[in-house]
């Protein structure tokens, strides 16, 4: 391992400024090749290298002024194995220029900054350089799928997801500690609902197709008009009812994590509008582009584990809200309908409510309202 140092290009030269490199790490150099351009007080000089081999690493970036003798690059001499540079030497060799955020990310992703080439001014390492280094160091890259559209939102950096996990944990713990939960559940026969939905979707273009989830949302919103106490927040020592109905919709992020941003004024939206805003909310949630008001405005939350969830779910209330309703998986079960036992599509709705704010009687009224609304889908 040989070091290429700032040469003394004249008797009175004490320091030189690297103008630019002619070679990149990995390039082979032969004795006498021009490896860099250096500016001295007298002139700009093409500098040659005296060892043949392969450029291992560039230690100084363009524009940097360093004293004569300072190591500028490391050359792996021909015929020599590449011993691991003792870290002290590498680090002392050059002050590593990296942005604070890049340093923080490098620490999180376990990337050694000394091994990263900076793409910023004066060779400063930026986040993308660290991200690339991390990717390079990661598992063999998947075959690059051709992606004509702009690259989808980058994967949540590890740091942010851990932060989200911590935030959810804190909120759930506080909720369990402070809110006296009580639970009620109701199994709802969706025969007429799903029949109406199938007919409705047949008549609609694909773009306007409705998901049954939207019907659940609208039923909850309209149900809250009949039992408004559940549409409120707990502030300080008292419940503050909300005249607006903003449904927090639990959205599971790809690769883990959960957010429950608000669908504003859900009760006032038609099914078409609600479907469009629901689709928009999900895509923006997954792209990490939610507005702050969507995070702070929900007055109640609706959660559902989707097709591969369980039959019922007993959710925990998101403080400062005072209720949450969870819908289980749609299941086909024998069900007594007009005196006959028929296979019916059923969903179990479980309401968790804050006993400081309401009681079983009113909560039951809400669930029966939702059930009734779902069974008259035309009214949604």
């Amino acid at each position, binding site marked *: 391992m040989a070091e290429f140092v700032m040469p003394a290009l004249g008797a009175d030269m004490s320091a030189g400024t690297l103008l630019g490199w002619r070679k990149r790490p990995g390039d082979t150099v032969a004795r006498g090749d021009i490896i860099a351009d250096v500016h001295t007080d007298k002139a700009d000089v093409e500098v040659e290298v005296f060892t043949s081999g392969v450029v291992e690493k560039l230690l100084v970036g363009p524009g940097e002024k360093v004293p004569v003798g300072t190591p500028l690059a490391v050359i792996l001499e021909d015929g020599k194995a590449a011993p691991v540079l003792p870290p002290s030497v590498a680090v002392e060799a050059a002050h590593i220029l990296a942005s604070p955020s890049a340093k923080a990310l490098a620490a999180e992703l376990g990337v050694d900054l000394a091994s990263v080439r900076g793409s910023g001014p004066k060779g400063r390492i930026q986040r993308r350089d660290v991200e690339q280094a991390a990717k390079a160091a990661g598992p063999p890259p*998947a075959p690059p799928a051709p992606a004509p559209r702009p690259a*989808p*939102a980058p994967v949540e950096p590890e740091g942010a997801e851990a932060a989200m996990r911590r935030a959810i944990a804190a909120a759930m713990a506080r909720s369990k500690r402070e809110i006296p939960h009580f639970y009620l559940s109701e199994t709802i026969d969706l025969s007429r609902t799903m029949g109406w939905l*199938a007919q409705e979707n047949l008549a609609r273009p*694909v773009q306007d*197709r409705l*998901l049954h989830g939207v019907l659940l949302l609208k039923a909850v919103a309209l149900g809250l008009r009949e039992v408004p106490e559940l549409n409120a927040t707990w502030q300080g020592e008292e419940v503050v009812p909300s005249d607006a109905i903003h449904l927090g919709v639990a959205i599971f992020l790809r690769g883990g994590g959960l957010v429950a941003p608000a669908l504003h004024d859900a009760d006032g939206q038609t099914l078409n509008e609600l479907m469009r805003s629901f689709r928009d909310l999900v895509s923006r949630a997954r792209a990490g582009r939610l507005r702050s008001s969507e995070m702070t405005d929900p007055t109640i939350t609706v959660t559902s584990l989707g097709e591969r969830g369980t039959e019922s779910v007993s959710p925990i209330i998101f403080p400062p809200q005072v209720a949450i309703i969870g819908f289980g998986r749609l299941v086909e079960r024998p069900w007594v309908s007009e005196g006959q036992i028929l296979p019916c599509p059923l969903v179990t709705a479980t309401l968790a409510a804050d006993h400081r704010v309401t009681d079983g009687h009113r909560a039951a009224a809400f669930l029966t309202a939702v059930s009734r609304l779902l069974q008259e889908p035309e009214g949604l």
Partner: protein
Amino acid sequence: MTTDEIRDTVLRMLGEIAPEADLGEIEPDVDFREQLDLDSMDFLNFVIAVDEELGIGIPESDYPRVATLESFVAYLAERMGAPGVEAG
């Protein structure tokens, strides 16, 4: 459009819905919704993408016939390969 071209198009669209998924690993004859953890919203976006790009509107009743990658490609090939023949 050959079945390979159809498969590439389908894979690309799936890549947009689940960017972090590893498309190379998809088992062709296992429900890809499960493999890629797609929920009903993802699948609807996927169906809409197919409709927008390939002009084929998949009715809900046909959803069971397009659960795996292979059956999806075959379904599309049939719908495209033999225009006029209504899919089952």
